């Protein structure tokens, strides 16, 4: 490589690399690269050993490093033993989307806004009529958890606050069919979603 001669380092610890064509301090002849391209030297760049005596015996350097790392032992522990120590997400956390179940029925009226706003096209539903006050309900409601990107747009778009992001973050499937969550897996009672629903009401 071209190394235009530079001023040496302020601390004097290092000098710029010698051009490889020049013989090194050790007297070993360095390879002379005949380079057709100006600015590209193919000869190996031989570096001068510029370690001081103290650096060469290594011990002070090792001690310096050890002091720095041993200090860490006395700092508060930062890691968590995960499967044993559980992590409680804050109410703002966007876990897997669920359908809110109130009095044994889902709030959803199958308007289809969430399916329309979903950037990943993960939501699919089939609306049907019901004698209940809301008149419409989703006969079939599926979220393909392989497609879901946890953006939270469905929750934002929902006029009934019927689909929210829960605090569940562990998602395991054994096969692709399992990853398509139907109503059986999606429904979650309001008691479990209390903190999230409160957070949403405050945030909006």
């Amino acid at each position, binding site marked *: *490589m*071209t*190394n*235009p001669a*530079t*001023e040496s*380092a*302020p601390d004097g610890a*290092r000098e*710029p*690399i010698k051009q490889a064509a020049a013989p090194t301090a050790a007297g070993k*002849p*360095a*390879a*002379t*690269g*005949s*380079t*057709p*391209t100006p*600015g*590209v*030297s*193919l*000869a*190996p*760049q031989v*570096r001068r050993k510029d*370690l001081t005596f103290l*650096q060469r015996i290594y011990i002070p*350097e090792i001690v*310096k*490093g050890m002091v*720095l*790392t041993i200090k*860490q032992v006395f700092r508060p522990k*930062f890691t968590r033993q995960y499967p044993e120590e559980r992590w409680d*997400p*804050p109410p*703002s*956390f*966007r876990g897997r989307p669920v359908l809110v179940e109130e009095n044994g029925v889902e709030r959803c009226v199958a308007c289809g806004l969430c399916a*329309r*706003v979903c*950037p*990943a096209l993960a939501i699919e539903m089939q609306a049907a009529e019901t004698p209940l006050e809301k008149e419409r309900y989703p006969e079939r409601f599926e979220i393909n958890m392989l497609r879901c*990107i*946890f*953006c*939270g*747009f469905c929750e*934002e778009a929902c006029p009934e606050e019927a689909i929210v*992001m829960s605090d569940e973050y562990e998602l395991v499937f054994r096969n692709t069919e399992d990853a398509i969550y139907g109503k059986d897996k999606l429904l979650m009672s309001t008691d479990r979603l209390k903190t999230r629903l409160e957070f949403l009401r405050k*945030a909006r």
Partner: protein
Amino acid sequence: MDPRAITAEPQARRPDTVPGLGRSLDSQEMVINMGPQHPSTHGVLRLELVVDGEIVVDVIPHIGYLHRCFEKHCEHMTSYQQVIPYADRLDYVAAMSNELGYVVGVERLLGIKVPERVEYIRVIMAEFSRIVSHLIAIGTYGMDIGAFTPFLYCMRDREHVLDIFERTCGARLLYNYMWVGGLSHDVPPDFQESVRRFCRYFKPNVKELNDLLSYNKIFVERTANVGVLPAAVAVNYAVSGPALRGSGVHWDLRRDDPYSIYDRFEFDIPVGLGLKGTVGDCWDRYMVRVHEMEQSVRIIEQAVEQLPPGDVQSAIPKRIRPNAGELYARTETPKGELGYYIVSDGTASPFRVKVKAPSFVNLSALPAMCRGAMISDVVAILGSIDIVLGEVDR
């Protein structure tokens, strides 16, 4: 087309003669594949190395393993808003910066002005994003060179920022936080305090990082004078970001083409000085990142003191339907100049979104830096330009 044909400089040839012998040895170049499953390529990048013994004659990057059709996706969205989660996934270690670039572009296209509070929070988040990205770049760079401990320390510091992100917008990596005209949530009540706490915590850690890695003898030996990218070559390759500033070029869009409210803050633009070797070597590019983190903390400290009260969602338009037109919005992300070229045809979704990704452009300068270096230096050079394959391939 032979990919070698598009490299700027003609190919270097191996030496014909061996010194001392005076005659040519019957040897030939060898092609080695580095990647796509190589830990030092930071993702799925394949480098075709043409080597002469231990010396690299040419490097041909092969990309596209992570191509996700981002630009085509944008054309098939139902609204401008839906692009934002996908913009997150360009440079996935600094997602906030990508969002900022996109929303700034769409807001200019719409001609709307966002509230002050939103601007300040956006700047804080984008600078946090820069710190996170640089921490990963520095940590993994040390690990490439052989220093494992700084990586753990960097990831630990990064965790504090991610906690702030998580309490604010609910996600740790892909936020979907900055929306066109506003933000998805307001910040939590203890936001200012937690930001200040982080700044207090982080500043001594930069010094510790310098002691541990930056001025470490082994690290300097591996990075100083390696992969020198002269300023003129960097400019010719349209390199941007820390890779350009490492070559000593004062160019930062936050100062030179201010967007959002960056013109209100005081900060320095660190450039490579060649303290340990030549201007534009790997160590310079590395050190620019370290200094940039300190400058980001400075910006955050100023912004968090001035954070005005207000509503973050008042300016969010009900329907985003810009008039037909086109616009190029560029922002300074941790990797360099990220540009969105957005074409609107007057409908609710973009007609075309072209992304000018900094990692992609910076990667194109890799062969120029690697020619003549040793094979083990390729790892150091690649780490020093800090590419993210999500952005290279889009």
